Structures are given as C-alpha cells and as structure tokens.
C-alpha cells in the first residue's frame, strides 16, 4: 500500500558517483577548514586530494558501466566520453591543488576556502561532461562558473578583484544567452533531453526556426565559456588578474569541461542540424585562431600572452569540433588533453618563476631565466614548444589530428588557416625562449626553490613528452571514448 504511494523510478546513482564523492569531500573540507581551530592547510590539501582520487577511481569503474545509457530520469549520461573527460579534469584539479597550496603558503595568506572551492568547481565540471539534459548542463555550468568567480577574487591584489568582476559580469551575461537558447530548444522540440531534442529534429516534428535560434544562442553561451573570438574579451583580464595557481587551474579545466559539453550538445541533440551549425563553428574557429595568435604578439606580460595563446588554442579545438565526425571528437579530446597538460604546466612555471606573489610577470623578467633556474627554463621551453606544435611534443600530434579531421570532413580551408595561425603563433612562443636563453637577466628575481610544486609541474611536462612520442598510448582509448550516442 505504502509502496504504491511512494512509487518512484529506479534510482541508479552509479554514473554520478564521482560527483557524489566530490560533493562529500568538498563539504567535509569546507567544514574542516571552518571548524578546526588550528587550521592545517596541509591536512585540507591531503583530504581534497583523497577526494579527487576517490572520484577518479569511481570514474574509472564507470568505463565498464553496463546499466542504462542515461540514468536519473535521463539527466545523466553514462558513457566513456564522460569518463575520459572526467579523468582529465580530476588530474588537472589535483595538480592545481598542489600548486595553489604552495602559492598561498608562500604568500603567507591563509585560504582554507581554496580547497573546497576547487572541489566544487571540479564537481560542476565533471557533471557538465556527463549531462544529458539541457537543465543539467545549465546547472553544472552555473556551479562551475560561480565557484570560479570566487576563486578568481581569492587574492588581496586589486587586479584579482577587478578580473573577478569582469568575469562575473560577462559570465552571467553569457549564461543568460545560453539560457535563452535552452528555452528556444525547449520550445522548438518540447523537451530538454538531448536525445529527445535530436529525435524531434530528425523527425522534422520540431520548429526549425526556433531550433536554429537555439543553436545560435547556445553557441554564444559556450563560446563565452571556451573563450572563442568574438566572445573572448574577459579572458586576458581574468587570466592576468587571478592568482597564478587559479589561472593554471581554470585555463586548463574550464576549457576541457566547456568543450566536452559543447561537443555533446552539438553532436547529439543538434546532430540533425549539422549542416546548419558547421559554418558557425567554422567561422568561430577561423576568427579565434587568427585573433588569438595575432594579439598574443603584442603582449608584454607573460600571463596575458598565455591567455591569448589559450584563446588561439580554443580555435584549434573548434577546428576539430567543426569536422562533426567521430574523428573530430577524438581529435578534439586529444587536443584538450595535450592543451590541459601544457597550459597547466606553463602557468605553473610562471607561478614559480615570478617570485612571491605576482610582481614579476612581465616578459622582460624572463630574460636569462636559464642562468637562474635551468630546470624551470627547460620546462617552460618544452611547454612553449608544445603550444607552438613542434615535435616531439603532444601539441604537434594534437594539431596534426585536428587538421586531419577537418580535411577528412572536407574543411581544408579552415585547416589551412589553422596552419598559418600556428606559424604566426610560433613567433611569440619562440621569442620567450630567446629571452630565456640568449639574454642577460635584467631584474634580480629569485625563482621559487621548493621541490613539491616543481614535481607538480614536471608531471604535465612528462605527459606532454609521452603523448608526443607515443600518442598511441591514449589515442586508442580516446577513439573508444569518442562515440556520442542519442
């Protein structure tokens, strides 16, 4: 009798296991930071890392998930694409926590809220990669954005607060566009489930005009999050203003998460409209690659230069997205993996090389870095080479893959622009290397001598080399992960 009243659909919590672990760890660390009188940042760090490890273990176990494809009323997708994206995000978060711990410790600032905020941001990011419903995509997007606004402001410097305000205003503005797109998609097809939208559009039962408006608005929303031109204006300010450890985290992780959701939404629910959205993505890719690469040349601050470089990289990933094939998804995933490792490492080196706080981030202070710290200069060169796409680094393989996917899909024009943009981009990467190796030091900046953050930077460096020399190690996995079903 009672069961009749309390009947509910079967609840399968397996596919959101990683998010549950992250939420639990986040709440525990938050309470720990607030309640324990003698705060131990190291204990908070270890607890957070344990949470991330637990989430990673649960994610890996989902690789062989045999239950329903979507669970919780069609809200969450349990596929391998989500597993791979989650693992990248969790790895980035773990390294960023180590870097951030060191950053605030060296600065002498007590920031117990840093750890739970990173965990909650990661929760939003991993959730968005698995979201199978536009409602959940929006909610996860907000979870990650709201936490990132606070993380950006986590510093006494004025630039951080200013960057945070710009990020917040533009981010909320773009969320509204995204939401309008969701409403349009709902009106066009009568559902917010990605697969139901796809079926409705494929069967021509939906309202095509509203659906096209929805695609355009959703592309604007995602364009802001991945920092695609012309929606990139916030990126340099925020990346420069935020504490360097936070910049390292968000430059790597936000792009992975936003692109994962972007891929899923475009390739599942709007797959019947592929011919309509490909030219939009195509145009975004071309504009992003050119503007990002050209404006990076004019920069005099290393964080700003890397920000523009990360904009250009969004363009290269968009080349893979515009292919709209399984090969395109695979190449975009590999590019994101290579990019995440590279940019995280590069900002990590910037954090270590720029002295305490953010005093020395101008390009000039990198002159003669190899005298002061050969290790940091070497790591930085490796990351810069990978960003420029020079073998034997992961960046080279990644660029080759996205261009091949685009050419195979018949978009050789966008691939051509991509090659030209990477030639332009090589200039400012190599300029930093010339500064580091061939000039006398101008300022007397002592790089940070600590070992642990160096290890945290060495890990992405190793991965960059490993995936550059043996890309086959992950390409097979990524190929199996790049099937998006609807």
């Amino acid at each position, binding site marked *: 009798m009672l069961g009749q009243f309390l009947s509910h659909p079967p609840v399968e919590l397996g596919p959101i296991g990683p998010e549950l672990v992250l939420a639990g760890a986040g709440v525990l660390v938050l309470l720990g930071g607030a309640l324990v009188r003698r705060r131990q940042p190291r204990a908070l760090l270890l607890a957070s890392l344990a949470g991330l490890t637990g989430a990673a273990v649960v994610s890996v176990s989902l690789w062989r998930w045999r239950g329903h494809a979507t669970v919780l009323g069609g809200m969450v997708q349990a596929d391998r694409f989500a597993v791979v994206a989650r693992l990248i995000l969790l790895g980035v978060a773990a390294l960023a926590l180590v870097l951030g711990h060191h950053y605030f410790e060296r600065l002498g600032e007590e920031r117990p809220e840093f750890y739970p905020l990173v965990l909650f941001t990661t929760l939003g990011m991993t959730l968005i990669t698995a979201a199978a419903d536009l409602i959940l995509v929006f909610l996860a997007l907000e979870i990650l954005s*709201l936490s990132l606004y606070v993380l950006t402001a986590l510093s006494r410097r004025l630039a951080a607060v200013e960057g945070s305000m710009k990020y917040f205003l533009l981010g*909320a503005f773009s969320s509204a566009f995204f939401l309008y797109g969701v409403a349009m998609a709902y009106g066009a097809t009568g559902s917010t489930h990605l697969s139901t939208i796809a079926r409705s559009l494929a069967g021509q039962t939906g309202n095509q005009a509203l659906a096209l408006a929805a695609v355009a608005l959703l592309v604007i929303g995602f364009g802001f999050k991945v920092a695609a031109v012309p929606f990139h204006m916030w990126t340099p300010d925020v990346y420069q203003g935020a504490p360097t450890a936070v910049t390292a985290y968000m430059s790597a992780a936000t792009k992975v998460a936003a692109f994962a959701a972007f891929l899923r939404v475009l390739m599942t629910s709007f797959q019947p409209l592929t011919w309509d959205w490909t030219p939009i993505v195509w145009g975004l890719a071309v504009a992003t690659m050119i503007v990002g690469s050209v404006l990076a040349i004019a920069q005099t601050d290393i964080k700003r230069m890397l920000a523009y470089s990360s904009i250009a990289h969004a363009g290269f990933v968009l080349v893979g997205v515009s292919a709209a094939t399984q090969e395109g998804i695979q190449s975009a995933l590999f590019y994101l993996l290579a990019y995440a490792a590279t940019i995280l490492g590069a900002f990590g080196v910037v954090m270590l090389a720029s002295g305490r706080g953010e005093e020395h981030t101008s390009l000039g202070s990198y002159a003669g870095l190899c005298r002061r710290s050969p290790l940091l200069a070497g790591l930085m060169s490796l990351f810069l080479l990978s960003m420029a796409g020079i073998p034997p680094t992961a960046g080279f393989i990644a660029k080759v893959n996205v261009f091949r996917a685009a050419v195979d899909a018949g978009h050789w024009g966008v691939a051509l622009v991509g090659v030209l943009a990477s030639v332009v981009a090589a200039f400012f990467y190599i300029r930093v290397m010339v500064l580091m190796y061939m000039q006398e030091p101008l300022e007397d900046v002592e790089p940070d001598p600590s070992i642990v953050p160096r290890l945290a930077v060495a890990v992405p460096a190793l991965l960059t080399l490993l995936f550059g020399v043996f890309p086959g190690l992950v390409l097979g996995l990524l190929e199996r992960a790049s099937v998006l079903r609807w």
Partner: protein
Amino acid sequence: MIRLPLVLFFSAVLFSAGVYGVLARRNAVLVLMSIELMLNAVNVNLIAFSQALHDLTGQAFALFVIAVAAAEVGIGLAIVILIYRNRETINIDEVNLLKW
C-alpha cells in the same frame, strides 16, 4: 488565453532591454539588475512554452533558474562590495587596471 507569439515577443523585448542595460549602464549594480532582467525574460519564455506544450518541464526549469539567479546575485553583490571597498567606486569604466 494569451496567444503564444505575443508572450514570446514580450519576452524577447524584455531580454533585449536587459541586453541594452548591460551594454549601456556603467554602474555595476545596474548591470547586475539588467542581467536579472534577461534571466526573468527567459523564465517568461519557459513558462509560456510550458503552457503551450502542456508539459511541466518548463515550469520546473523556471524554478531552477530563479534559484540560480539568487545565487548569482549573492556572488555578484559580494564582488561589487569588494570592488567598492578597494576603489570607492562601482563604475565599471573606472575599474580599468587591466587592459590590453
């Protein structure tokens, strides 16, 4: 019974007013209010569709949007206060430490 296109037109006007406010206003709090206007325009849209389609998803989504908007205002005002403490102004044209 109000006809659906009429409501959609109303919500589009409301949304555009919000966009105009974000682009034209220089006071951070007013920009924040304009963003709220945009979110509420979307809510009107969702509820209109929900009514026209005889489907409850839209109304449930509108509740989520209201909750998210409240959280967003919380964070937004906190950031504005932080800016005001530092600069004694919340005019977004005067907050220009970072450029190019």
